């Protein structure tokens, strides 16, 4: 280059100006306002640290368990307290560590990996984080008051529906975890839309990082797996609080329904933990083999295939419940089939390592550890997938060993590998290699010393969850060895924590791209800036840093898209789902406390309801609704000051898009899929009761009024049609018709909701008398609550139209509300069809 010094000077000047504007737009708030941050660089780190804090807490509980079991007839912990300890150990590890850590890591690194400035809904991530923190403290804190749940992490009724047997701990479990599940679904929505819509230009579907494939699959799995548990929680809590007999056989209920709903969630959850962890391995292996992954499409097969098959496994947790052999056979077969895609990805990793020149490193050591431990856990999984073998080891320490081999091998080890690998992204520095080797060997040996003997103690007949065992059963040595191993393992983990937390002011920053990786997250400067990526590159390969020469320099010098923040706003690119053509420059919202308030009040609803403080619950609910409305009103669907902007390289993109091309519409669509999954679980409950009863609906119980049901359907379909008409007329420029249609629609929604409740109330359905009126009431109330929500949305649009936020050109809100109403109409149709027509047919 032989530019004149003056022009080079002005070029540098221009670049500095861009960087200053970007830095100002993405600045992290200072002082106490720091906690109003919503950017992934802060929320991701909070999320990760909090998950690990909960993990350490649950780890200490694990050590208490091992200490109690070290010698026979030990009295270190009392029986009742031991019950709380193991229940909370499992609950916290699963709900407050294993699932959230995936969301935490993904929120932290996904934007970097996709060269996006942020995910599309940063405030939603922050809201999810605060929900998680509040719910987590609530659940964990209960043990300090002797009030922790004590019925095991899957809370089987009738033990835990009985208020005599299970105290307030069960309510804390149900409500605390429901609250956290809301956070998980929020994260899933964020990550699915992020993967599909926030990719850099050119990053076609065949070029996206494997991590993103896994995250996409896991996001979709969460949307379908978590809602059944929420539905189950609703039934469970209704039984505990109001004596609605869903799981009480004396009044037509069945405890098995809970097991179905729990495990329809619970088995996919195992893969919701495993897949994102193994996704980290899929990023680490190519880096240290210094070659592209061998068998990219096979990994896609594995991720998508496992995602699907994992929904056909849930009954393998119920092999001992006395279901017909043929039912067990289906689930046994599917459980064996899932070994195929799971095995495929292991072979892909091994093949990539064999074909490459493996660079030895601490992350790689943990990858080897993952492969070794997980394969063992997988093999015992193939064993227990066979029903007759499962009957022998069911509820024994063999299962404890199996599940720890899969979850620690397939979850924790890859996550620790990821911590070593991604640490420079977050802090600009590497963790210690020397300590890392100690950490690995202590954890790897400690783990195997602790858990390998449990296979044997299980086969010798030691049941899980016993708080002690007598001498002379041949269990003494095995348990003592397990306890020693657990402490060795914990020592390794403690060393890791020390290495992460120790001050490293003297340590120099790592060089850029310290592992010589090929993917975009390593574009980041050391230390990173909160804007994430300096400018957004055009991608033409799977490993752009290896295969696109000069890319890193072009990005760093701001020669790609969106190198500036001229208007001082936070912006990121939106692209098409398959070929990643850039289609929109999306303004993303900045710091706010409103998400924290919304989470606090939402948390209040769940916490106060636990203690039956109904007035406080109501107030908190109203405040939560107000906070969420304020958040939506001030932070979403903001009308830009100009229709489009130049994002560099001669590309002009619109700043506002509505309907199926907007990210908000996608988020609504995905949320409603989850909503329908919960609704489907409740309808499943209705038909489940029909299946198990010779006569259902029972002759001595009144049916809901078909007349009022039919009327409510007419009203709600009318409200739906009016909403749709409002959208269409608005698009044609008739603002007044929009308002008129929505006013009428609101009235019809509320009347429709009321008619639903009357349909149950007028014939005198008593939900405590039998499970039939109880399940009918649940469906009626579910649909009526949705009708009220729909009315609030209609009112919101009327207000938006009057305030000038919703116009014929800027119509995101009415599009999204109409989408809600499509699902609402379907919900009403199914509810009425089931409740009115099925009793006639049966």
């Amino acid at each position, binding site marked *: 280059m032989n530019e004149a010094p003056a022009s080079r000077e002005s070029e540098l000047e221009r670049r500095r100006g861009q960087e200053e504007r970007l830095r100002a737009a993405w600045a992290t708030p200072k002082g106490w306002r720091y906690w109003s941050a919503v950017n992934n660089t802060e929320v991701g780190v909070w999320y990760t640290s909090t998950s690990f804090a909960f993990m350490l807490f649950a780890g200490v509980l694990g050590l208490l368990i091992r200490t109690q079991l070290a010698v026979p007839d030990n009295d270190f912990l009392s029986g009742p307290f031991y019950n709380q300890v193991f229940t909370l150990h499992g609950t916290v590890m699963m709900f407050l560590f294993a699932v959230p850590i995936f969301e935490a890591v993904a929120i932290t690194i996904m934007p970097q990996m996709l060269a996006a400035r942020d995910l599309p809904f940063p405030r939603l991530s922050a809201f999810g984080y605060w929900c998680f923190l509040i719910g987590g403290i609530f659940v964990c804190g209960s043990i300090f008051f002797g009030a922790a749940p004590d019925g095991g992490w899957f809370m089987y009724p009738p033990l835990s529906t009985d208020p005599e047997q299970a105290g307030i701990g069960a309510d804390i479990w149900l409500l605390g975890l429901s609250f956290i599940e809301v956070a998980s679904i929020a994260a899933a929505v964020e990550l699915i839309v992020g993967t599909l819509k926030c990719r850099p230009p050119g990053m076609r579907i065949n070029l996206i990082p494997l991590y993103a494939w896994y995250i996409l699959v896991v996001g979709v799995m969460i949307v379908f797996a978590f809602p059944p548990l929420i539905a189950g929680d609703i039934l469970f809590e209704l039984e505990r609080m109001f004596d609605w007999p869903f799981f009480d056989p004396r009044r037509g209920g069945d405890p098995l329904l809970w097991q179905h709903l729990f495990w329809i969630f619970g088995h996919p959850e195992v893969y919701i933990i495993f897949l994102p962890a193994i996704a980290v391995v899929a990023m680490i292996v190519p880096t240290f083999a210094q070659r592209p992954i061998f068998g990219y499409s096979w990994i*896609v097969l594995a991720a*998508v*295939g496992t995602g*699907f098959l994992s929904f*056909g496994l849930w009954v393998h947790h119920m092999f001992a419940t006395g279901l017909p052999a*043929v039912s067990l056979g289906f689930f046994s*077969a*599917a459980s064996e089939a899932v070994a195929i895609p799971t095995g495929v990805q292991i072979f892909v990793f091994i093949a990539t390592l064999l074909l490459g020149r493996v660079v030895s490193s601490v992350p790689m050591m943990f990858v080897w550890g993952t492969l070794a431990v997980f394969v063992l856990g997988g093999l015992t999984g193939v064993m227990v997938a066979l029903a007759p073998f499962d009957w022998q080891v069911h509820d024994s320490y063999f299962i404890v060993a199996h599940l720890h081999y899969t979850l620690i091998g397939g979850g924790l080890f890859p996550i620790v590998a990821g911590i070593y690998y991604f640490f420079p992204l977050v802090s600009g520095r590497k963790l210690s290699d020397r300590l890392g080797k100690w950490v690995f060997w202590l954890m790897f040996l400690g783990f195997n010393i602790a858990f390998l003997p449990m296979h044997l103690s299980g086969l010798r007949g030691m049941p899980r969850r016993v708080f002690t065992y007598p001498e002379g059963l041949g269990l003494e040595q095995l348990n003592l060895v397990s306890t020693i191993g657990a402490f060795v393992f914990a020592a390794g983990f403690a060393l890791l924590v020390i290495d992460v937390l120790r001050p490293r002011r003297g340590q120099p920053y790592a060089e850029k791209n310290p592992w010589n990786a090929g993917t975009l997250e390593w574009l980041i400067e050391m230390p990173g800036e909160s804007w994430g990526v300096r400018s957004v590159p055009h991608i*033409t390969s799977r490993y752009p840093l290896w295969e696109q020469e000069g890319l890193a320099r072009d990005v760093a010098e701001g020669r790609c898209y969106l190198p500036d923040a001229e208007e001082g706003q936070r912006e990121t690119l939106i692209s098409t789902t398959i070929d990643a053509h850039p*289609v929109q420059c999306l303004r993303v919202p900045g710091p706010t406390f409103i998400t924290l308030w919304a989470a606090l009040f939402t948390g209040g609803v769940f916490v106060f309801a636990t203690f039956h403080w109904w007035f406080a619950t109501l107030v908190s609910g109203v405040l939560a609704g107000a906070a969420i409305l304020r958040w939506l009103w001030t932070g979403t669907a903001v009308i830009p000051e100009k229709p489009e902007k130049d994002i560099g390289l001669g590309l002009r993109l619109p700043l506002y898009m509505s309907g199926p091309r907007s990210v908000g519409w996608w988020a609504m669509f995905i949320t409603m899929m989850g909503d329908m999954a919960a609704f489907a679980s409740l309808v499943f409950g209705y038909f489940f009761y029909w299946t198990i009863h010779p006569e259902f609906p029972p002759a001595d119980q009144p049916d809901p009024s078909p007349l009022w049901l039919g009327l409510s359907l007419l009203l709600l379909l009318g409200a739906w049609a009016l909403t749709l008409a409002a959208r269409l007329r608005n698009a044609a420029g008739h603002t007044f018709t929009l308002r008129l249609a929505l006013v009428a629609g609101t009235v019809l929604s509320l009347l429709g909701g009321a008619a639903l409740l009357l349909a149950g109330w007028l014939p005198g359905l008593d939900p405590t008398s039998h499970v039939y009126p109880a399940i009918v009431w649940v469906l009626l109330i579910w649909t009526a609550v949705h009708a009220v929500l729909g009315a609030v949305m209609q009112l919101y649009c009327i207000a938006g139209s009057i305030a000038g936020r919703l116009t014929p050109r800027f119509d995101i809100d009415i599009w999204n509300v109409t989408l809600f109403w499509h699902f609402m109409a379907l919900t009403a149709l199914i509810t009425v069809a089931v409740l009115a027509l099925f009793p006639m047919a049966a």
Partner: protein
Amino acid sequence: MAFESRSPRNSLIVLSLGPTIWAAHFLASYVVAAIWCEKAGAGAELAPVQLLVLVFTAAALLGIGWLGIAAWRHWGYLEGEGPPHDADTDEERGRFLGFATLLLCGLSFVAVIYVALPVVFIADCR
């Protein structure tokens, strides 16, 4: 501004059709067997269920097979290059989707056979 082709072959929905057929087959088989055994009693013969599950299986395998052949054509292995399909072109993106769909069809085909096997070996509702 370029917009991508709306061809149904280039969509993530098609990619997941094979496993979706598996899921439908699985659910249908399980529901039919569960309802039959609950209503007909623990000693009942499985014959009607066996017949239905075999019909479901034949339909599912046909569907997956048809989809797999379409995916094989879309992949175009015989005319072009094999994997890794990592080039930045419409053609390579299409081939990748075809290949991944084919792989998923293969897995779904095998998994459907797995799930059908219990009714071959189990003859009653015990």
